[in-house]
């Protein structure tokens, strides 16, 4: 049972470590504003697939790590990711049966809410950033969703059949 759980957790943890790497990878200035919110996409995917093991608690912890990694106000990404996980867990039964187009259309507003929360907290704590820094990631994140979905689904089913 323990081993089973550990092997089940590994792909999720690895995907988050990889997401954190993608998040902090240097990019040219021109496309930096369009870097997708990898971590938010991962939280949506795992909260949708495994809402009992990976829901708001883990989203919050990952948010805190993201805050430290990015040097933002402690709690900013934690709060935003908790909301993302909450919405996803509430809708996970619907989202699982959605066809990919409809699912992608659902991811868009969730990402928009995520960015809006970051924007709002930035405003309250006095951080000034251009509008493109918020809305660019929403668009590219939505475009990347089908890709992430395909890769992670493959990963998930492979680990399931292996144990």
């Amino acid at each position: 049972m323990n081993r089973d759980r550990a092997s089940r957790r590994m792909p999720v943890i690895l995907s988050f470590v990889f997401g954190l790497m993608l998040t902090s990878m240097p990019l040219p200035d021109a496309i930096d504003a369009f870097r997708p919110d990898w971590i938010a996409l991962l939280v949506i995917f795992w909260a949708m697939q495994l809402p009992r093991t990976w829901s708001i608690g883990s989203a919050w912890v990952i948010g805190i790590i993201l805050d430290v990694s990015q040097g933002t106000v402690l709690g900013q990404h934690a709060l935003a990711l908790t909301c993302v996980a909450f919405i996803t867990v509430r809708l996970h039964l619907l989202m699982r049966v959605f066809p990919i187009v409809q699912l992608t259309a659902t991811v868009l507003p969730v990402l928009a809410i995520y960015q809006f929360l970051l924007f709002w907290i930035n405003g309250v704590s006095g951080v000034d950033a251009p509008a493109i820094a918020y809305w660019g990631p929403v668009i590219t994140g939505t475009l990347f969703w089908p890709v992430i979905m395909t890769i992670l689904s493959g990963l998930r089913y492979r680990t399931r059949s292996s144990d």
Partner: protein
Amino acid sequence: MVASRESSGNPGRIPALGVRFLGLIFISILLMYFDNRDNHLDSVRRSIGVAVYPVHIIVDAPARLWHWLAQSTTSRNDLELDRDRLIAERLLTNARLQKLNALEAENARLRAMLDARAKVRDRTRVAEIMSVDANPFDHSLVIDVGTQDGVVDGQALVDADGVVGQVIEAGLLTSQAMLISDTDHALPVEVNRNGLRTIVVGTGKIDRLELPFVVNNADIQVGDLLVTSGLGGTFPAGYPVAIVASVTRLPHEPYAEVTATPAASLGQVREVLLIYPAATNAEGANDE
């Protein structure tokens, strides 16, 4: 067991989801309040930062490898050219240094006569910039030294050409620094030519700074060198910051529109010098 329940597709409610959600939101808001108000959480940040360190190392690795490869595969011809250039440069700098020694002695003598405290050379150390792109909302970078090496918040960063930025968050092993081009960054400077004091503010563009408080009739020209005035206390005096790029005098406005180009190439630096705070080397107030 957990998994079998999940994969069977049995809907079922996730227990106490709403309560946990509200609890976490509340904790987040508390955290943000305390973190933003008075930096009570620096030690928490530092300990979590150690956990993030391996990720930063991995992200930095390809750039480091590339750098190393590029260095170890340089051709003999290039190396010889480099050597010739460096020898010529050394001759030049040595000649200048001789003059500097004399000037320094003279400066100390004059200051002694004026009864001012001696201005000792600033203590520095080299830090390497890690290829980690931290925060999307500001211009910052991560350097590979932390509190372990004596880094403190507010420490100034310069490169060979001028001021780069300052440390905003000293972690245990790595630190975050803010570039002078960040919109939140302001820096007290003076015009090297005539000592006119003003403030340089970042614009969010890496090659552009702004001088928002220069009055219309102030003596400032395109090409003027701006150096740190040392007034804020963070930056030691006399380091080049930027060169004035344009001056537009607006008769109907109280202040002229002045922009400047940073002296340091902010987008390209790989190594920076950290300057230790003035308090440790007994630098006197630098008022003219």
